[in-house]
C-alpha cells in the first residue's frame, strides 16, 4: 500500500509542472495540455483523499472535473481554430488587443 503522502507529492509536482507550463509556453495547445495536467493533478489529490477517508464525494468530484475539462477543451479548441482562421497564427503573445 503506497502511503497517501506520495500521491499528494506527485499531485503537487504535476500541478507545479502544469502551472509552469501555463505560465511559460506560448502555444495555446501546450497551455491546454498544461491546464489538463493541473486538473488531473487535482483529480489525483481528490481520489487520494477519497481513498484515505473512504468516501465517494472525492471520486464524484473527479467525474465533474473530467466532464468540465472535456467541455473546456471543446470550447477552447473551437476558439483556437477560429483565432487561427482570422489571424493565421496562434502565438499567445500576439493576442493582445485588450492591452490597456
Amino acid at each position, binding site marked *: 500500500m503506497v502511503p497517501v503522502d506520495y500521491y499528494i507529492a506527485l499531485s503537487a509536482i504535476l500541478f507545479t509542472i502544469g502551472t509552469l507550463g501555463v505560465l511559460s509556453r506560448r502555444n495555446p495547445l501546450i497551455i491546454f495540455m498544461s491546464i489538463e495536467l493541473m486538473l488531473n493533478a487535482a483529480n489525483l489529490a481528490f481520489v487520494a483523499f477519497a481513498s484515505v477517508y473512504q468516501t465517494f464525494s472525492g471520486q464524484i468530484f473527479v467525474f465533474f472535473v473530467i466532464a468540465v475539462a472535456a467541455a473546456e477543451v471543446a470550447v477552447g479548441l473551437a476558439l483556437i481554430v477560429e483565432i487561427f482562421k482570422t489571424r493565421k497564427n496562434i502565438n499567445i503573445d500576439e493576442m493582445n488587443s485588450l492591452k*490597456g
Partner: protein
Amino acid sequence: MHLSETVNTGFYFLAPWLVLAPVIGLLINAIFGKNFSERAVGTVASLASGAAFVVSALLAYSVAINHGHAVSVPFAEWIHIGDLRLDWTFRVDSLSTTMMLVVSGVGTLIHIYAIGYMHEDVRFKHEEGRFTRFFIFLNLFIAAMMILVSGDSYLMLFVGWEGVGLSSFLLIGFWYEMDTLARPSWANSNAAKKAFITNRVGDFGFLMAGFLMFWHLGSFQFDEVFAVAPAIAHDSPWVIVAITLFMLVGVAGKSAQIPLYIWLPDAMAGPTPVSALIHAATMVTAGVYLVTRSAPLYSLVPEAQYIVAMVGAGTALFAATIAVGQYDIKKVLAYSTISQLGFMVAAVGMGAYVAGMFHLITHAFFKALLFLSAGSVILGLERGHHAHAHHAHHDEKPKGKHKKDEHGQHGGHDDHGEVFDPGDMRNMGGLRKTMPVTFWLYMIGTLALAGIFPFAGFWSKDEILLDAKLHFTSVYWQLSIAAFFTAFYMGRQVWMVFFGEARTDAAKHAEESPKVMTVPLMVLAALSVAGGALNLPFKGFHQLGHWLEYTLGKVEFPPFDLGVALISTGLALSAILISWLLYGRNPLKEGQIDPLKKPLGFVFTGMENKWFVDEGYGVLILTPFKKASQFLADVIDWRFWHDFVHDTVIAGTYNWLSDVVLSRYADQKGIDTFFNSWGDFTKWLSGNVRRIQNGFVRSYALSVLLGVVLILGYLIFK
C-alpha cells in the same frame, strides 16, 4: 331700540323693498334690457323707483298710525366678530320716511322725464345699451340713496353715502368720451373724477368721525351712540366736537359746502336729469340729512353748531354771488343749489332742524323743477338749432355766424359744423313765445326759489331766516343778502332766457318739449306751489314740525314774524326789480356784453370766474400736489428706487455676488478646482494602473497564481 315685534300693525316688514325694488329694476334692465325698447327700459326703471315710493308712503303711514314709533327692521347680518355685531337694519321713523318720500317721489318723476330727455340728448347717438345703462345707473342711485336714508347706523349710512357717490361719478361721466357739446374730449370724465376725488376728501372726514365714534362711543348704531353721547360730552367734550367737525367735512363734501363745493358746478357735465336728481334734489342733501340725524350729537356741542352754521351761511352767500356772473343756464342753477344747500346747512347748524328739512323738501321740488325745465330749454334750443340748420341747408342760405363768447366756450356739432352752445343763456332770449309750457313751469320754479309769497320757497326760507334772526344775527344777515342775490340771479336768468328777442336762430325756432317731459314738471310745479303747506308758520299748521318731532324730540316753533317775512320779500322783490332794470327793460342784444360788467368792473369779473377758486385750488393744492407727485415719481420712485435701489443696489449687488463672488471665485476657483483635481488624479491613476493590463495572457495567469498563493498563504499563516 325697538324691535319689529314690539309694533304689530303697519307695513314695516316692507322696508327692505326700498332697496330691493330699484335693485330688481336695474337687474331686469341689465339682464333683459338688450331686447327692450327705450320706452320699456324707462318704464321698468320708473316702476322700480315708483315701487320704492309706494313702499316709502306705506312706511310713512305705518309710522303715522303708530304715533311716530321708530322701528328697526333687521334685514341681513353683515359682520359678526366676537361681540361686534354690525347688521344691515332698516330704521323707519319720521325723519327717514320723509327723506325716503322725497328721494323716491322726486326720483320717480325724474325717471319719467328722463325717458323723454335721454332720447333727445344731442350726445345720444342711439348706441345700443347706452340708454339702458343710464336707467340702470339711475336705479342704482335710488337704491344707494335708500340705503343711506334708511340705515339704522352710521355704518349703513356710510355704505349708502359711498353708493350715491359712485352713482354720481358714473352719471356725471355718463358721456365720458365727449364734452357737454358732444365734441370728443375727456372733459366729462374729468368732471366725474373731480366730483369723486373731492368727495373722497369729505369721506375722509366722515370716516374719521366714524372711527372716533366707534372708539369713544363704542357703536355705530344711532340710538346707542345718542344714548352714551351725553355722558361722553360731559367727561371729554372734545370727542364730540371732533366727531361733529369731522362729520362736517363729510357734509361739506357731499352737500357741496365751502371749501369742497367745487365739484358740484362741474358735475353739470352729466345729463340734465342727473343734475336735477342727484346734484340738486337728493344726493347733495345727504349732508343735511346727516346733520339732522346727528342732531343729538350736535346739540351737545354749541361750538360745532356755530361752525356748521357759519359754513352754511358763508356758502349760501358766496355761491349766490358766483351765480350772478354765470352764463350757462345749468351753472347758474348749480351755484344756486350750492347756495340753497348753504341755507339748509346753516339751518341745521343753528339747531333749526325742522326748518332745514323743510327747505330740503321744498328745494327738492323747485330745484328739480328748475333743472328739468332748464333741460327742456336746452333741448328746445337744440331742436330749434336742428330745424333751422336743416332749413338753411335746404334754402342754400348762408348760415348765421354765432359769436364766440369770452370764455372761448364755443360749442358745435359734428353734423352741422357750426359753433353753438344750447346751454349758454346768451344764445337764448324770447323763449316764452316758443316754449310757453316750459316758460310757465320755469316761472313757478323761479318764484319758489326766489322766495316769493305764497310759493313753497317763501315759507321754508322764511323759517330759516326767522330761526337765524332769533339765534345768529350774523347768519341772518348773510342769508338775507344771499336771498337777495338768489332773487337777482334768478330774475337775470328768466329775463335773459325767456324775455326779449331771440338772440340766435336756434332760439327763434325753439320747440316745446313732449308730454313725457312736461307732465312730470307740472307735478313738480304743483308741489313747488303748494309745498309750503307742509309746515306753515301758524299755530296748528306745523305738520312737518310735529311729524319730525317724533324723531328729533321737542321742537320749538317760533311765532311767525311779519318783519322777517317783509324784509325777505322786500329784498327779493327789489332784486327782481333791479334785474328787470338791467336785463328786462333793455333785453340783451346779440353779442352784447353783460350790463353788470361795466358798473361792477373787476367784481363782476370775479363772479364770472367763480372768484378764481378753482384757480386758487390749482395754485395752492393741485400744482404743489402735482409737483410733489412728479417729484415722487421721477426722483424718488424712478431715480432713487428704480435706478438706485433696485438697479444699482439690489440688482448690482446680486450681479456682483453671482458674477464675481459665486461664479468666479466660489464656482470657478473653489468647486471647479476641487473637481478638476479629482479628475486629474483619477486620470493619472488610471494611466498608471492600466499598464498592468499588458495583453500577455501569461502575465495574467501569473497574477492569478500569485493571487492564489497570497490567499492560500494568508489562510495558512493567519
